[in-house]
């Protein structure tokens, strides 16, 4: 079925959002750190079930401006690696319905210049002309070569919870 879709898809039905939300949360007994980005670009190709996400690192907003500066300067090198990206495919995308159901997305996540294959579960539905996806997953900072200096080891969690919510709308060139 998917071979058919991939190979013979000619009518490219694509859905896009430029206002996707991605937030991350680091929890330690000492402090919680949270940041949110409401300008995430995400696109879904409805004929193939493939998707791609592009995240501008400097658009993550923190509660404290100094934290934001340190995030960009010292942890993710935003000048050198301005974007995080994901490219992957939604498994069984053809089963999408108007009622929410969990679908797996497999693909490559690139942060800080390091790429790792991950599987993410997303609650997915299509209502009218909108493809909605939401969920959360954990990443290990070490997988993306983001180093935490020993002095703040107790303030920043090695495991970061990432949440996302996208409302893709029909994309016309």
């Amino acid at each position, binding site marked *: *079925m*998917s*071979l058919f879709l*991939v190979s013979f898809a000619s009518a490219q039905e694509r859905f896009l959002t430029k206002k996707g939300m991605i937030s991350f949360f680091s929890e330690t007994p000492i402090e919680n750190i949270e940041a949110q980005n409401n300008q995430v670009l995400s696109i879904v190709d409805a004929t193939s079930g493939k998707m791609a996400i592009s995240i501008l690192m400097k658009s993550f907003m923190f509660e404290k401006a*100094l934290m934001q500066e340190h995030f960009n300067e010292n942890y993710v090198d935003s000048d050198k690696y301005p974007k995080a*990206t994901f490219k992957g495919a939604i498994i069984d995308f053809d089963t999408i319905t108007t009622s929410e159901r969990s679908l797996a997305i*497999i693909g490559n996540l690139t942060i800080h210049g390091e790429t790792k294959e991950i599987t993410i579960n997303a609650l997915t539905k299509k209502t009218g002309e909108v493809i909605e996806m939401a969920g959360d997953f954990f990443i290990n900072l070490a997988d993306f070569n983001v180093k935490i200096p020993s002095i703040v080891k107790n303030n920043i969690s090695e495991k970061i919870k990432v949440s996302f919510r996208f409302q893709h709308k029909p994309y016309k060139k």
Partner: protein
Amino acid sequence: MKKVFLNTFLILASLQLCSQDLLDILEREAPEMENIVSATFKGTRIVNGHSIENRKNKELEFIISHRFGRVNTGFEELFGLDQANIRFALEYGLTDDLTVGLGRSSFEKTYDGYLKYSLLKQKTGVNAFPFAVSLFGSIAAKSQKAIPGEERTFAESLFYVGQVLIAKKVNSSLSVQLTPTYVHRNLVAIDADPHDIFALGFGTRVKVSKRVSLNAEYYQQFDKLESINARNSLAFGVDIESGGHVFQIILSNAITMVEKSFITETTGNFFGGDIHLGFNLSRTF
């Protein structure tokens, strides 16, 4: 399960072909962003003098700065460590762009207050602008009791400083700053001393690692105090950042830390060994 596996395999196999296109679309669709260049310097000081960096909105910083005596005083004075000028200061971000500071130095029991305002920001992308400009103004009041016969009024104890800070982050490791400076003193020691002194500051920082940078700063005066045989101030520093703190270790030919003083009242000859070891410690709340 088998179907899922097969689907997964087929999709991943053709991933490179199609998803790359999708990322290209996102690249094209990405709105052009205004990107404000941040962290031109690590601290609010390059070495002794101010950098364009402000305290952020509602952040309170407590700073303790020390300058020891001259290194060339030798072993008896433990290379200057027996003597110290200390400045305590509280600095607060009224907004992200406006910082107010109050300090007190032990040298001549000087109180100082300043305002620093970020007027223009260096930007890339939309509305790109090549450098940043901040305005700085301070008043310092000497409160040390005058020696008999040289009594002065409060107004005569005041000093004013105005600076325009022009900085550019050339790349992620190199930043430079030009600092045109005007210093006015209400009272001068002798008639030959100018009330108004113009100076031009040169500052730079070079990052040697993510959290360590080397800084240098020089103030060229265009007029000098004759009564004390003043010299231009030269200073070098190392910034070490750890979490929310910046620790600065400093070598300077000035023992003071307020603008009116280190810019116009420095007498040490750096290359003659009149070097003061010092540090700035800050804690942000």
